[in-house]
């Protein structure tokens, strides 16, 4: 699969390495060139310096023929915008975005139709689950 990942933080960098090791063609976008230091030469895909809400950057990353886009940049709003560009303008078949704010996540999932992952909700239930061991 051709996969674009927006945001090379802890999650983005780890995911990029794993997906690329599995044989996917991964393109990783981050606006801070130093963010790619996390990859420690373990990443076989392509890196693109730029912001994931810039159409030119996304085109350069191959959004026109991408099979999937995962947006895990620092700000919710960046992910929301990158996800909508991918899903509604470029018709990327699989788009997943991280939205930390649960209320915003609910709105973008139900009203806009984005597929969202909300770490706040997931970690809340994980913590509670661990307590009840």
């Amino acid at each position, binding site marked *: 699969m051709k996969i674009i990942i927006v945001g090379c933080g802890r999650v983005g960098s780890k995911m990029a390495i794993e997906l690329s090791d599995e044989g996917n063609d991964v393109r990783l976008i981050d606006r801070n060139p130093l963010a790619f230091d996390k990859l420690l030469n373990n990443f076989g895909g392509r890196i693109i310096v730029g912001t994931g809400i810039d159409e030119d950057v996304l085109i350069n990353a191959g959004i026109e023929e991408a099979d999937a886009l995962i947006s895990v940049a620092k700000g919710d709003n960046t992910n*929301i915008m990158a996800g909508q560009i991918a899903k509604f303008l470029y018709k990327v078949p699989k788009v997943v975005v991280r939205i930390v*704010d649960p*209320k915003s996540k609910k*709105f973008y999932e139900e*009203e806009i139709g984005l597929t969202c992952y909300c770490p706040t909700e997931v970690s809340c239930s994980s913590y509670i689950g661990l307590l009840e061991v």
Partner: protein
Amino acid sequence: MYVVIVGGGQVGYYLTKTLLEKNYEVTLVDWDFNKTERLKYELGGNVMYASGSSIDGLERAGCSRADVIVAATSDDEDNLVICQLGKKYFNVPKAVARISNPRNERIFKELGISTTISGTSYIAEAIERYVAKQQLTTLLTFSRNEMALVEAELEENSPVVNKTTAELELPYECVIALILRERNVVFVKADTIFKPKDLVIAISTQNEQENLRKILLGEPEV
């Protein structure tokens, strides 16, 4: 008429002031605490410290009864979310987005936000129209494009340099609001003297812009 403006930078600030002068009810929202405290000195209760791109923040700002929401931050992604929440969550009839990347105009339109204002486009158009340096840059237009907030950068040989505002014969329909000098803001009084490299911010009708430009910057070099 109730207007919620998100983003307390220069655009949001002047827009708030202008609309208040026109007797609109306005709330200016920003998530920078220091900024809102500073703005409160001048704009008082019309300023609110809140996150304007969150449902909770917009709720507190009274978005559910707003007639217009303006997203005036410098980040396009924030402005998109502000307008989408305004329109689709709070059912605000009119949403206006400021955008920095002119290519986002089309993206915003496709995503349901049709009213966008791009300072970058204005500047690019200005450059295309004249290659000369001595131009006013339109920062914002309002009142059906009749009024404009403009800026002009003075040079060593600009005609106003070393003059006071009292000495200028400004047209009636324009006001010099302030000067950005190095990193300071200078509020313009009758005895304020213009200096080279001053960034002059003025409000003018479209009709008087050319006169204002001549007074501040002189004849363009073609």
